[in-house]
């Protein structure tokens, strides 16, 4: 493997997380860990609890049991449940399964909102505009343009996102997440609904992001070809339980995983 940044130590560790909505047990005692700079995939049949897992990681859902340990700025922090604002400020960014862009805003504004936690000026300074607020705005514009260049969306930067085709919207959402300079990037089905070419582009971007920025990626994906090709390690969920964990080869050979996907004769 010739990556710029080698896979390092654990950066995130999920221990015994259980989440229930009334009687529906979405996650039951799920534990796994994520290492720095790796691409970690979460797979599983529909309704296995993959999206719920991501929602727990960045504080949209609050699990009833379990702990989440995150290494941010060199120190371990332990959480029973995350708060989404806190998760964002600790460097967790994500994209959504159903695109969650700000439809009325341009691509540039969408990506700029990704940097909101780095903006320091008060609204009064912004209203007056001259001086610090203007400098700050231009400084962040420069950083945002780098992300826009990286994901090759320069030509649409002034277009309202509502007018863009689906594949590009997915890319803009990735750009918005990257603008926050995350240490941990959660991607919820980044390739769903795409044709082969768009999928190849997206895979290239995910690998490039991981390689260039050293961002740790946790992704959910249904396309097994993609998962087996780009991920370093895979977690398999089924009915809210973890049934497999390991390298793509190990997971592919795991009988429980094969049974979950293909079914078993009773």
């Amino acid at each position, binding site marked *: 493997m010739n990556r710029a940044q080698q896979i390092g130590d654990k950066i995130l560790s999920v221990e015994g997380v259980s989440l229930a909505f009334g009687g529906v047990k979405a996650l039951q005692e799920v534990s796994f860990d994520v290492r720095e700079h790796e691409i970690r995939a979460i797979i599983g049949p529909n309704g296995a609890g993959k999206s719920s897992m991501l929602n727990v990681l*960045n*504080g*949209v859902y609050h699990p009833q049991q379990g702990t989440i340990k995150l290494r941010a700025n060199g120190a371990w922090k332990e959480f029973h449940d995350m708060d*989404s*604002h806190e*998760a*964002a*400020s600790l460097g967790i*960014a*994500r994209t*959504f399964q159903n695109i*969650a*862009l*700000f*439809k*009325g*805003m341009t691509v540039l*504004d969408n990506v*700029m*909102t*990704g940097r*909101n*936690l780095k*903006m320091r*000026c008060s*609204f009064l300074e*912004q*209203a*007056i*505009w001259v001086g610090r*607020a*203007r400098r700050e*705005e*231009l400084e962040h*514009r*420069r950083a945002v*343009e780098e992300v826009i260049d990286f994901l090759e969306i320069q030509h649409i930067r002034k277009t309202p996102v509502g007018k863009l085709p689906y594949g590009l919207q997915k890319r803009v959402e990735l750009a*918005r997440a990257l603008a*926050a300079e995350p240490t941990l990037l959660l991607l919820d089905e980044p390739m769903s609904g795409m044709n082969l070419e768009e999928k190849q582009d997206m895979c290239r971007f995910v690998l490039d992001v991981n390689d260039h920025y050293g961002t740790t990626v946790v992704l959910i994906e249904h396309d097994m070809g993609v998962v087996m090709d780009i991920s370093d390690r895979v977690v398999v969920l089924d009915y809210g339980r973890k049934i497999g964990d390991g390298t793509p080869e190990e997971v592919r050979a795991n009988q429980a995983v094969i049974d979950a996907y293909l079914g078993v004769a009773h």
Partner: protein
Amino acid sequence: MLYREAGQFKSTYAEDQQIFPIRQDRVAVALLLAVAFVAVPLFANQYWLSAILIPFLIFSLAALGLNILTGYAGQLSLGTAAFMAVGAFMAYNFVLRMPWLGVIPSFILAGLCAAGVGIVFGLPSLRIKGFYLAVATLACQFFVLWAIQRWGWITNNSPSGVIAAQKVEILGYVFDTPQRKYLLTLSIVAVLALLAKNLMRSETGRAFMAVRDMDVAASVIGIPMMKTKLLAFAISSFYCGVAGALYAYTYLGTVEPEAFTLDLSFRILFMIIIGGVGSILGSFLGAGFIILLPIFLSILFGALSHATGMQIPHSVISNLELIIFGGLIIFFLIVEPHGLARQWQIAKEKLRLWPFPH
């Protein structure tokens, strides 16, 4: 000069982030300001200034305030008139009880009082959305009017609840003629509109729009929901409060609480719907439409009856005006649900290519 940006290259982000990136826009805005500040006070007559232009500016400011809340931050509100009432009556109290303060600081303090009321009545927005929130803001409308009529000190114990605005004096200069009042109103509105434009194109404005478009994604990105929504209520109410103070001081002169009924809130809501939701320009266009169209219609009918020699009874004419006015509103909403500001946007895009079809 054709309206297009061909040949205007931008080589720095500073140039690209200007308030009006296209040169023709800058020229047009400069011309408009010159006309509004110099030509209008010189040539417009008393009637135009005090009965049309001053209310137009004040309603534009109120519509701008509501547009920040509803158009940008996506929080529906029917409390606009109440925030204006807070501004008007608090400005009266500040000028009355603290005369050393000066008029402009009193207006600003009155706006801040309205902002405080806005924050209190914006609290339900943390849990409820859309039409339900609009109903919750109705409480503000009724509470504020009730408080003004009930608590004597607000109206300085005036038995009928009517207050007479004091004369407006800034640094020994008295704003008493329509020209001077117009200039004062125009200056305040122009400055506040500029501040709003700046705010809406920077981080605060983006946070407002993010909350409007997709609140879950906004909070995941790290935008604090509570702070953003309450800030939207505060800024919007500040604008409405200042508009209310101007309404009392440069337009009406004597104000009764009944001037700020739900009816007024609805009028301002219609202004932003017709003008363009989520657009600074739209606030002005909408106010212009709602205020100028009835006047234009009555002039038109006057000219028509004069030209044809027909004696149409006055009651018929005033009803006809209302019917046509209502019809035009429906027509505009069907043809362009995004408001007049969107029409202007489309016209600009067409002008870019004109006279070539592609």
